[in-house]
């Protein structure tokens, strides 16, 4: 006979297909969650210009870390170092060490293409492929050989769209073009696309700046769901958004990591004057 609590669990959540881990522990921000990305003395250059100076930071797993700072402070450059996107820019050069789960992302034997499937990225402007909704999500698992059959692939697409909170809105039109969706839906589609290849880390560069407040709230809710499973790093210009979605916040200024800490602490009692001046709107 099944234990009563199991009956309760199974019958009470027939529609819960979010694939949450069986036990969602109360999230504790900070190093207790375990370090996912370890960065040590990362420097980045665009030609002669140094964009990042000795960035050393540990980014926890299963938490959202927000990078904030004025334009040109290096936050997006640093984000792009994590999945080696800077390599695609001519003249760009990165030194220092970045480890994900203890392995160096810049090691010779690391294939950047495989790395970028492990470290998904979501951009400011949704960039669905000019293909159907289904193909947008199926593309990654197919080229990385993650599905053994057509049914398997369909399962991955469905699960990814469900995790991205988009399934209910697109289930009946999977073969329409991805670009037929609204901006917020497109952004959730590219998040589903990132999730489909089983990433370890999701990087987001201003994912909501082109969205209205309702679509933004949906993405923020999604980020909050996803952080139970992934390490998420988000670059945002909206201080309020950093405060709402992240557990850790790092403040960059002129290529330097000025301060990093628990989000609640950074926004109520930052240690550094430069951080305080920036978040309170006093930057001279």
């Amino acid at each position, binding site marked *: 006979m099944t234990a009563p609590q199991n009956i309760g669990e199974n019958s009470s959540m027939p529609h819960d297909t979010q694939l949450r881990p069986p036990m969602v522990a109360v999230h504790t921000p900070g190093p207790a969650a375990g370090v996912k990305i370890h960065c040590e003395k990362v420097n980045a250059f665009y030609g002669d210009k140094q964009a990042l100076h000795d960035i050393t930071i540990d980014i926890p797993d299963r938490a959202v870390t927000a990078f904030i700072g004025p334009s040109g402070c290096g936050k997006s450059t640093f984000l792009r170092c994590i999945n080696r996107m800077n390599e695609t820019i001519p003249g760009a050069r990165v030194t220092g060490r970045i480890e994900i789960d203890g392995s160096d992302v810049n090691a010779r034997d690391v294939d950047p293409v495989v790395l970028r499937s492990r470290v998904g990225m979501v951009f400011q402007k949704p960039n669905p492929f000019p293909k159907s909704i289904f193909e947008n999500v199926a593309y990654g698992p197919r080229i990385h050989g993650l599905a053994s059959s057509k049914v398997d692939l369909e399962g991955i697409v469905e699960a990814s769209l469900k995790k991205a909170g988009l399934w209910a809105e697109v289930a009946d039109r999977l073969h329409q073009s991805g670009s037929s969706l609204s901006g917020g839906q497109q952004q959730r589609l590219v998040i589903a696309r990132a999730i489909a290849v089983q990433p370890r880390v999701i990087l987001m560069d201003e994912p909501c700046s082109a969205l209205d407040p309702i679509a933004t709230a949906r993405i923020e809710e999604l980020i909050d769901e996803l952080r139970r499973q992934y390490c998420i790093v988000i670059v945002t210009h909206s201080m*309020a958004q950093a405060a709402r979605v992240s557990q850790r916040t790092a403040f960059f200024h002129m290529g330097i990591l000025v301060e990093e800490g628990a989000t609640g602490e950074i926004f*109520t*009692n930052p240690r550094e004057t430069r*951080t305080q001046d920036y*978040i*309170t*709107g*006093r*930057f001279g």
Partner: protein
Amino acid sequence: MQSHIVTSYEEELNHLTAEVARMGGLAEAQVADSISAFARRDVALATSVVERDTRLDALEAEIERAAIRLIALRQPMAVDLRRTVAAIKISSNLERCGDLAKNIAKRSLILAEIDNSGPVTRSIERMGKLVSSRLKDVLDAYTASELSAATSVWSRDDEVDEHYESLFRELLTYMMGDPRTITPGAHLLFVAKNLERIGDHATNIAEIVHYEITGAELTDQRPKGETQQ
């Protein structure tokens, strides 16, 4: 500290602090006047203290409205957030001080008719002056953002407590000795208790000022009842 890029935001924050300082001045006057009215059994002054209390209530409501508006429209962060929350909390402590001063004034009106116990009145008056100066010190610390001045008020609260304890014993002795003194004695005891509570509000304000300036709470044990070596 640098000023805000948005001038009107800076002005709103400054206005909020100025209103709290103004309310502080009023509360200080109410407390001082209630003590004078009590010490001299001054019916006219006591009546005026009772009547003026509504101004403090109105100011508290106004500060709260301004702070809520500021939070909603400006989303203050860090020191600005602490400053805004401190304004709400200090004004609420000041409003309580006002209520207690009003209560002292009301009891003074009653005592003016029934009591002639000189020595205890002097003793309570001394306690009142001590409490009054604590309130003044902490409000000066608030306006000048002086951390050490606030901490000093906070660490000296035990003097007021000791004063109250000794008055309590003194009054009990009187009341036991002569039952006719029980009614005035009870009023005197409440006056002393009210003063002790105003002292507590001054200590609360010191804690709030400390949090506003440093972002850290002042919750370590005060030197209250500590045995000194």
